[in-house]
């Protein structure tokens, strides 16, 4: 590790599983000082290591994946073959050592591996275990496998994206997994806090589907209350008008919105067409909505001749909400994100310098950090098992001879 974070210093976290929803919890906790150990096996490493680009220099490899790196910076990696009895025995030793187990396998898999909560909590009564999967541990579809990119559709999020007369739109990556992982991190930490007060461990059953619905709570409440089925509506808003994205010079876009007639007057002034504010077609929100096509054309006619940054700065000077539609490369140069060091470069043994993403919050008096790069497969076996878990040299050698680390 190349940096230090202190808020969660001393917290010991063990991860079984892979891909997104489980590992992202451990990443966030590691960014604030927890010792997080990502358990894989060399035979079945984390699927994100190899299944999806990008790879460094477009050459796939277990230690070259940007996808794996996103979810696993600041952690240790160990390899344990859980299909071998000594591997399970080693997992028991780790469970006795740690405070929190995070697993995101299909419901029932941990039990079948001999690593269910009943077994592990008998070994460590203070253990918190967070089990997260698509549907949760119970219910008629508890056993359904799935990826977050598609679960976002089941939770209504994709159906609420796009224009009214067009198809649903994709949300990049496993969108819902980040919801579940952030909610899961809060639940896990709340359980750890209870352990500190009461000594009582906890089992948290976290359905990624249900977590995603928390981001749809208002639409669901409205349906229950009135029967109204919310529909996708592009960038329209029931209050603000205009409210949308407009093309700018050089292929850029700018988002802007007016929440009052005064803000619309400021927009019209910035456009050099102050008379629009008194024009009957645009004098009220309802009028602006009724004449949306004409108004959008006027605004686009102004924005298209200017850069997105220039438009946004001009409008912000007039207290109109606006911001460039930031591209992926633009994230690395956005002055606001740069000011809070949103991306932090760490040197990886095979990938070289790579920019890792920091969470959206920080503690002013005990700041977090990207403590280290994502680990290579099994890179930390000796350190974790000898120095952290506390195996003797003879024990470690016995496990090695038994092929547990293969």
């Amino acid at each position, binding site marked *: 590790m190349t940096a230090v974070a202190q808020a969660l210093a001393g917290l010991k976290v063990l991860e079984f599983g892979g891909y997104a929803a489980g590992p992202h919890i451990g990443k966030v906790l590691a960014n604030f000082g927890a010792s997080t150990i990502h358990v894989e096996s060399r035979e079945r490493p984390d699927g994100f290591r190899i*299944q999806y*680009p990008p790879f460094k220099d477009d050459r796939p490899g277990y230690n070259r994946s940007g996808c794996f790196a996103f979810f696993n910076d600041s952690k240790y990696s160990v390899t344990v073959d859980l299909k071998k009895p000594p591997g399970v025995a080693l997992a028991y030793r780790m469970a006795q050592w740690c405070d929190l187990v995070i697993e995101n396998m299909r419901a029932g898999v941990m039990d079948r591996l001999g690593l269910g909560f009943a077994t592990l909590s008998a070994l460590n009564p203070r253990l918190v275990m967070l089990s997260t999967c698509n549907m*949760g541990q119970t219910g008629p579809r508890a056993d359904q496998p799935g990826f977050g990119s598609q679960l976002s*559709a089941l939770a209504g999020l994709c159906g609420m994206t796009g224009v009214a007369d067009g198809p649903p739109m994709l949300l990049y990556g496993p969108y819902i997994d980040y919801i579940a992982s952030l909610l899961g991190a*809060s639940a896990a930490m709340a359980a750890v806090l209870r352990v500190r007060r009461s000594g009582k461990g906890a089992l948290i059953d976290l359905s990624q589907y249900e977590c995603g619905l928390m981001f749809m709570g*208002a639409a*669901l*409440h409205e349906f229950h209350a009135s029967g109204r089925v919310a529909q996708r509506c592009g960038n329209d808003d029931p209050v603000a008008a205009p409210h949308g994205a407009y093309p700018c010079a050089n292929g850029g876009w700018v988002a802007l919105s007016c929440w009052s007639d005064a803000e619309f007057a400021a927009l019209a002034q910035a456009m050099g067409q102050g008379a629009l504010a008194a024009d009957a077609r645009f004098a009220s929100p309802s009028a602006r909505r009724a004449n949306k096509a004409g108004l959008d054309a006027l605004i686009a006619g102004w924005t298209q001749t200017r850069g997105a940054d220039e438009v946004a700065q001009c409008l912000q000077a007039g207290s109109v909400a606006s*911001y460039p539609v930031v591209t992926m490369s633009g994230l690395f140069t956005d002055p606001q994100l740069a000011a809070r060091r*949103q991306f932090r470069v760490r040197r990886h043994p095979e990938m070289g310098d790579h920019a890792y993403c920091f969470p959206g919050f920080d503690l002013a008096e005990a700041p977090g950090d990207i403590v280290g790069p994502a680990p290579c497969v099994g890179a930390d076996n000796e350190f974790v098992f000898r120095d952290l878990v506390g195996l003797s040299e003879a024990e470690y050698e016995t496990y090695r001879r038994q092929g547990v680390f293969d």
Partner: protein
Amino acid sequence: MLLTDVLIIDATDRMGWLAGRLLADLGADVIKIERKDSERSASQWRAVNVNKRVVEHDATQAADRENLASLLACANICLLTPGSSQAPAELDPHALRAAYPRLVVVAIRSFGAGGPRSGWKGSDLEIMAAGGAMALAGEPDGEPVRISEPQSYAWAGAQAACGAVIALYKRETTGCGDLVEVSAQACVVTALSHAPAFVDLSGIEPTRAGAFMTGRSITGARYRVFWPCRDGYIDFIFYGGAAGRRTNEQLVAWMRARGAELGALAAIDWKVWDATRADQAEVDAIEAPVMKFFAGMTKREFLTEGHRREMLGYPVSTVADIASDPQLAARGFFQSVAGAAEAFCGSFAVIDGVRPPLRHSPGEAFALPQRAGAGLKLASAKGEMRARRRS
């Protein structure tokens, strides 16, 4: 309950509402500070302010200011959206940290506390744009879009809750509170997943893909995600790897059992097929017969049979589909506060086999303890509040 004895003062506007709701779901006692004339009837308020109690506050009234100070003296966490119209002006994050050294103060802002654009105005639309999410959503040649149900406030609330419990852990370890600074813009960046890594590692700029997925193949091939069906859309993708293999095999078996035309699918050995190397011509050829097959089924048929066959893929739900989902009913996800008919998303996690019940209706008043000697019973169960009364 996990956060029993944790008292939270929630003085946020919409950007922070979810944070308090999530912490209330975990057992915290959340007191929402509201202006006397605030709007509380809309779904957007009620859905995320259930499970809290309300104290009305008028900053011009000395008694209200004193009451708020009394609450803060007992609180573990204070949630703020500084500068918002709902935030009591006297609640400055740094001043609170100075006045209450053990207090965890969470300050949620559109663009964070520092930086050249920290004072910029931004609603959900601008925050989603600033966080990169709109650059990735919409038709490739069309307008970037946000999700029609506002998301940036929820992202900020979710990360704020996470920061709050991390700071609470630190407080229990060190005895000191902290100031948790939250940038809604930065919170949205998390939702972009590994898209920025394409720029950093490969120099590729991920963009809007419409109803397709890019970035799966090193050839740049696009995979269809949304397929029209009889009553809407199905989300299905040809995945690679072990998980994709089973799904792809099962889809072909299902199509064969129905007598559907297989086309290019018939010749593929899914054990060796590699989604990361398929080119566009190959992807188009295998997707054509699937388009016809899905067009004839309903969303619920796909959900049911897909589950039976252990396939990856889900229908594109509306809120009506979600409200009638048997999986959610079996797990008791939708809940009401005892005795009321109003339905909400229940607590988000099942703890030790039990989903914590919702305890307070939206807008339920919190009865403030009276001045010493007044003799009114304390409505809060908080131990710290009791201690205050005794003192």
